[in-house]
């Protein structure tokens, strides 16, 4: 039963991203700053750090599915988020073997993954000719505000979810033993 919690939470964040911009004041929305919520990605990173064991790859499968869902629901250009999220979560899975899971590591991995994912999205959109944006403008107007706002989200998410994910991993482990 607890296995279904993670996809449900991811689905909840997916839907919440659609109303995320309503939380920001209009003055920020109409300015040049582009703040993009990567909440699904941040939760995937936390899953990769706290829920995965050495032999499991749930977070990569979830990254594939929910990346594709974001593409279908919010952009209509398929594959972009799916590819970037999956790649980033794969890298995080590799990196977490080096680090021990605590808040600083999670923050660091969160920042790295947001940067990588957002840059990957920028590169793909530029290559596909959907946007034209200079790297300078992109870094100042989009990347920086996006990183900062997503760190704030991660700081809220961490105390709520970290312990739970570890508990679910243990439950999953013992649950499998009884099967």
């Amino acid at each position, binding site marked *: 039963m607890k296995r279904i919690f993670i996809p449900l939470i991811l689905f909840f964040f997916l*839907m919440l991203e*659609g109303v*995320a911009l309503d939380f920001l004041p209009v003055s920020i929305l109409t300015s040049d700053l*582009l703040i993009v919520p990567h909440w699904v990605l941040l939760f995937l990173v936390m899953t990769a750090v706290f829920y995965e064991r050495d032999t499991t790859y749930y977070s990569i499968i979830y990254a594939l599915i929910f990346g594709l869902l974001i593409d279908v629901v919010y952009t209509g*250009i398929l*594959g972009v988020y799916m590819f970037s999220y999956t790649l980033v979560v794969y890298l995080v899975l590799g990196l977490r073997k080096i680090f021990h899971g605590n808040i600083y590591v999670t923050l660091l991995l969160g920042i790295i993954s947001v940067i990588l994912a957002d840059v990957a999205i920028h590169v793909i959109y530029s290559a596909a000719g959907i946007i034209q944006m200079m790297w300078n403008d992109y870094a100042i107007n989009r990347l920086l505000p996006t990183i900062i706002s997503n760190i704030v989200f991660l700081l809220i998410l961490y105390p709520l979810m970290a312990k739970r994910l570890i508990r679910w991993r243990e439950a999953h482990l013992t649950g499998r033993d009884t099967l």
Partner: protein
Amino acid sequence: MNLFRKKRLFIFLIGFIILVVLIGYSISERDDLTTAEQFINDTVGWGQRIIHTPVNFVTDVFTNINDIRNTYNENQLLKEKLAEYTGLIYENQQLSEENEELRNLMEWMDDETIRDFNPIQATVISRSPERWVEQVTINKGTQDGVETNMAVITAEGMIGKVQSHSQSTSTVQLLTGFDQFNRISATISREDSDDVFGMIEGYDQESDSLVFRIIEESDQGLEEGELVVSSGMGGVFPAGLPIGSVIEVGSDQYGLTRTALIEPAAEMYNINHVVVVDRELPDGDDEEDEEEND
């Protein structure tokens, strides 16, 4: 170890090929979403409808506090406007009666004009978090009669057009996301001289305004603040939907035609209730389709 590296590279390359194929498929001209996409859109839309209500309530509280501060000034302004409107209503009644009489006189049996439309009321349930893709999702779809390319308006003016539709939701491309492939035939109406005709040819990010290329100029130059409305000549949108007002006039990069920058009349943020405009007069394409179906 070497084998693993090769395997990884292989998977990465396959992923990359899938990415290119998917992007190519979704950018290409396609009329309808696939069934799978429609199903996903409807399912997520169903969830969003539930989430939207409490979130909207919370954000509305903050907006309301802001609004209350401006209430007094707005009230004064509105009272003045209201006094003007009583005169206008009378005038309007007379004009519409006169119009009807004249139409009867000309024996226009067909009541449908380029101006008429069926409004489909809808609520915005989400907005794309990807800021480069300017689109919102509304809670009406194919079942309510929404179709691709219908204009979407708010009380203030036009905000965009329907990009794709699922069974019970549809996505609306906002004016701010328009490019040269989404043109709107538009006009500036003049009382005492010829009307100005032209095309809205996309959105200029730098000046935050729509680009209006003038095709047929009037003998009088454009002035700032003049209202641009859709002309209905494009065959998709009905005539008379307000688009925006002129803020600057200049010539294009080759100096051959003149372009004007238009500030959209409607606000593109904080959109809540919209109306999907279903043009009553069928356009050329539809008639052909119907003939083919017969």
